[in-house]
């Protein structure tokens, strides 16, 4: 018999639309922290914002790659999305342990004629450090983000990404217009990192 499942959105239309708007804003304003505007419980190991984004984005047409299968029954019930074993065939990937994630090149990069046929990765991290640069000295200074949607540039540290992640991100940008887009999630917070954004380590 199944273990009890968690419910989905309390108000399906309203909440799904607000989450979709939040994700649009996150990708339109990379490097700016967006916060989920309501309480939401997602099954472990998914963070509230990961679960909410999954319910807003996934349906029967979006193959999903899960790093950990624990949330599979919940996703299948509420989103009805097909789950795939091969990251290259997924349109969305839910990554709960960034330290053990495959390289970005393992996911669908799109085709030259259709760059949108690529994967969007939801990566759970430990947290964001937007204001760490001034007080604690240079060690906590975050990398510098720039690109469309960012006036001049912005500093944002991301806690919990694996070593070498930003080099991997630069390689991802090297294949533009192909590549993957990321949504970084910490608890109820989301930061968009589309393929157009350049991140320099300070």
């Amino acid at each position: 018999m199944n273990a009890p499942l968690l419910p989905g959105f309390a108000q399906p239309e309203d909440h799904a639309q607000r989450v979709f708007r939040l994700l649009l804003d996150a990708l339109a304003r990379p490097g700016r922290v967006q916060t989920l505007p309501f309480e939401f419980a997602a099954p472990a190991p998914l963070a509230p914002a990961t679960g909410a984004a999954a319910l807003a984005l996934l349906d029967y047409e979006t193959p999903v790659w899960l790093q950990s299968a624990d949330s599979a029954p919940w996703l299948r019930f509420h989103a009805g999305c097909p789950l795939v074993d091969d990251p290259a065939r997924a349109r969305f990937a839910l990554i709960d342990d960034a330290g053990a994630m495959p390289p970005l090149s393992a996911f669908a990069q799109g085709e030259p004629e259709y760059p949108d046929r690529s994967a969007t990765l939801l990566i759970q991290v430990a947290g964001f450090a937007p204001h760490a640069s001034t007080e604690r000295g240079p060690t906590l200074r975050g990398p510098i983000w720039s690109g469309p949607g960012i006036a001049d540039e912005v500093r944002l540290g991301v806690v919990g990404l694996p070593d070498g992640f930003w080099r991997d991100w630069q390689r991802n940008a090297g294949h533009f217009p192909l590549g993957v887009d990321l949504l970084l999630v910490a608890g109820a917070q989301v930061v968009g990192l589309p393929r157009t954004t350049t991140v320099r380590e300070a």
Partner: protein
Amino acid sequence: MTQLCDPAQRRHWLGVLAQASPVELEQHLARRALPALHWLRRPETGLMMVRGRAGGTGAQFNLGEVSVTRCAVQDDAGRLGVGYVRGRVGRHAELVALFDLLLQDDIQRADLLPALIEPLAARQRAARATAGAQAAATRVEFFTLARGD
């Protein structure tokens, strides 16, 4: 943990419940004690494509869309009751889901099958037979006679 119930049997009672009148189900439910439960999916209405085959054996074709309301309820043991009904009556879907949940319990099932499902099924069979007989009475057979041109 109890065993999952027989899918064919479950399909049968879900079909019977979906075609029963919500008022009747409501009256029957009032006499039952419900376990602790939570709604996993509140009633939501959508469209489904009904497909048919000409003569029951021909190629598949789309007959038309029909509104369907569905919902799902779960008890603390993890049993899942689902309700799918034609139309837009949310409460009907809820009632089907609640009875589906109750019917998955061995003790409740032993009582509910003879008390609710079998009488409903018998009445639905009788109504279908009457309608079928009335339609059959209007049947016209066409013959083509060869003309001797």
